């Protein structure tokens, strides 16, 4: 299957629609979604991405030029679960595009594809818990099985908006699923040596990866998401890490790596920088390469 290259967060399909039909203009908030949309949409779509892979998607600066991109969209695909709540509403207001207004066919919350959301709070939610997401952990695209589900949801919505290309959308989504499914099994099998090693994460964004690969996450340096860790918490984490033999602390490139490295040093572990999005590291050129790199780095840290 041909794999599109995602560079600097901008993905563009060829403008050659069937029978000369105008391509569907799809704007995705994240590079992962942009790759999936381009795979499903193919030459029937033009795909643009708002948040470059190297940016923390929680805190993208809402530049007005991004609103202009949204103003041209026929379909907006976003992660949902309030991941983009800090910047997407402001951009949508500025874009003034009725085609992608919430509740319309052009508005696609990709989290609707999930069969299971992790870390949904069971008790009262308060900002005393930090930047907690009341609807659950939003980093579900770090489980490629969810990527397959999202691709199918995208195909259905694209088909609704461009019925004349519905068959092609469905075919591409099916081909993508057929390509990813054996890879998903192979990645999980390859992760066996890592399953024996408990990990510490910097920010609580690797739960879906851990759930899929069967990894043990001992805790997070940011014990309250988005809030700087207290010295007491780091001390407790250090003690637990040493007691359980933690050897790796995993973090995304946009996390505060100096703080992560210090925490890793204190518990006798190494910092493993993993791509948390397509384009987050130069080698993570697409969704498949991202998981290849995640597995390669975890296995290298484990000495495999």
């Amino acid at each position, binding site marked *: 299957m041909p794999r599109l290259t995602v560079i*600097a*967060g901008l993905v563009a399909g060829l403008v050659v629609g069937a029978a000369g039909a105008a391509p569907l203009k799809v704007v995705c908030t994240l590079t992962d979604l942009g790759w999936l949309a381009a795979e499903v949409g193919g030459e029937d779509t033009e795909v643009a991405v708002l948040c*470059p892979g*190297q*940016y*923390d998607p*929680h*805190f993208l*600066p*809402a*530049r*007005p*030029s991004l*609103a*202009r991109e949204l*103003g041209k969209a026929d379909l907006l695909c976003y992660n949902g679960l309030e991941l983009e*709540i*800090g*910047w*997407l*509403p*402001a951009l949508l*207001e*500025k874009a*003034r*595009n*009725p085609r992608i*207004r*919430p*509740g319309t066919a052009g508005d696609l919350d990709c989290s609707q594809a999930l069969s299971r959301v992790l870390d949904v709070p069971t008790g009262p939610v308060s*900002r005393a818990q*930090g*930047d907690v997401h009341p609807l659950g952990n939003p980093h579900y695209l770090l489980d490629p099985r969810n990527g397959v589900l999202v691709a199918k949801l995208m195909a259905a919505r694209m088909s609704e908006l461009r019925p004349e290309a519905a068959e092609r959308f469905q075919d591409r989504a099916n081909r993508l699923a057929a390509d990813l499914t054996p890879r998903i099994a192979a990645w999980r099998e390859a992760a066996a040596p890592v399953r024996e090693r408990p990990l510490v994460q910097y920010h609580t964004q690797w739960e879906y990866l851990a759930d899929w690969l069967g990894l043990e996450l001992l805790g997070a340096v940011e014990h309250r998401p*988005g*809030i*700087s860790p207290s010295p007491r918490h780091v001390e407790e984490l250090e003690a637990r890490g040493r007691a359980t033999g933690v050897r790796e602390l995993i973090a995304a490139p*946009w*996390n*505060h*790596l100096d703080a992560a490295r210090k925490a890793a040093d204190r518990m006798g572990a190494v910092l493993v920088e993993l791509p948390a999005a397509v384009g987050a590291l130069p080698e993570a050129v697409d969704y498949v390469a991202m998981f290849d790199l995640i597995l390669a780095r975890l296995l290298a840290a484990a000495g495999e």
Partner: protein
Amino acid sequence: MRARQCCLLAAFCAAAAAPVLAQSTATGISPEFNPAISVNTLVIGRVAERSTDRAYNGGDLQEAEVQFTSVVDPYWNANVVFAVHPTHDHAQDNAEGGETESHGGYEGDVEVAYVDGQALPGGFGLRLGKDYLPFGKHVPLHTHQFPFVDSPVAIQACLGNHGLTEVGVRLSHDLPLPWYSDLAAYGVDGQAEIFDGASRDLVYGARWTNLFDLSLESTVEVGGSWLEGPLSADYLLLDPDVTLAGDLAVWGADLTYKWISASASKGPALTMTGEVIVPRPDQGAQDPIGWYALAQYRFARNWWLGLGAGVLDRDLPEPAEEEESGPEHGGLFAWEEVREYKANLTWVPSEFSAVRLEGARFDDQIGDNDDWLVSLQVNVTIGSHPAHLY
């Protein structure tokens, strides 16, 4: 607070506090459609070197805003902000004794209440209702968004102490240029202190914003603003026995450079802004000009440093002999011509709170009224507050 506003506020709060009821068909109460509600509170403590005005000495609630935001229907979004702040004229010079008379207390106002059209053809934007006028970079800011505790002197003197929030209509459009270019034009019923509120003439104006993406991390914004309306009788007057009539035209230009590192979330960031305001009243002008420049730098994850300077300048007549030592004053901005210098350090532990320590120096260019002002401000937001624009 006025009774009608209190009733509105109570109605909103009651709706917000309604329990989730499964039988909304029968009750008519459906929390799903409640607006997003947030409250922002600014608490301030300050001390001035010379001024005796209570507003610049002691602790106070600088402002509390209650904001409601919601989708109205497929055609409109709505935003309503109720603001409570200290009574504006709570310190007045006692003419006979030269002492300050403090009244204290608070007053409320509907600061913002507008709807935005969402389905206009051609990508036009339409705003109806009460909102801040789009003049320059500082005027559209809510108080909790200010880069310093107070507005620049140039803004306060040229455009009024209490902001430019007016009722009217605004039409805007993203111009078809290679860069982001937004042109907004408006007509409002001018009630701000710089306008003659009794006049039947409208205030009208325009704002042109151009933003260039230099890279993924940096932008330059160039803006021009203009407004015109019936002049307040005492606008920028030196002589209290004179009253004015006619129109006031104000021109403005601004330049902003912004850089936000992608290397880490909440990593290094820098904003530099300069803005010049040129009012041209039909009468009593003395060719005033005001400007300010500021820089804000995030040097650590939760820490910002701010530096600013500003000027209000006019071609003033020679001061009378007896005024050379400067008039007694109760308020910091009773001066005719002033330079300001500011610096602050802000701790921002999360997006919902900030603590700011600020020092400001005001140099009166006429009399001996130079003053230091030190402020400590706590900024807290609770609830579901809409994201701010870039």
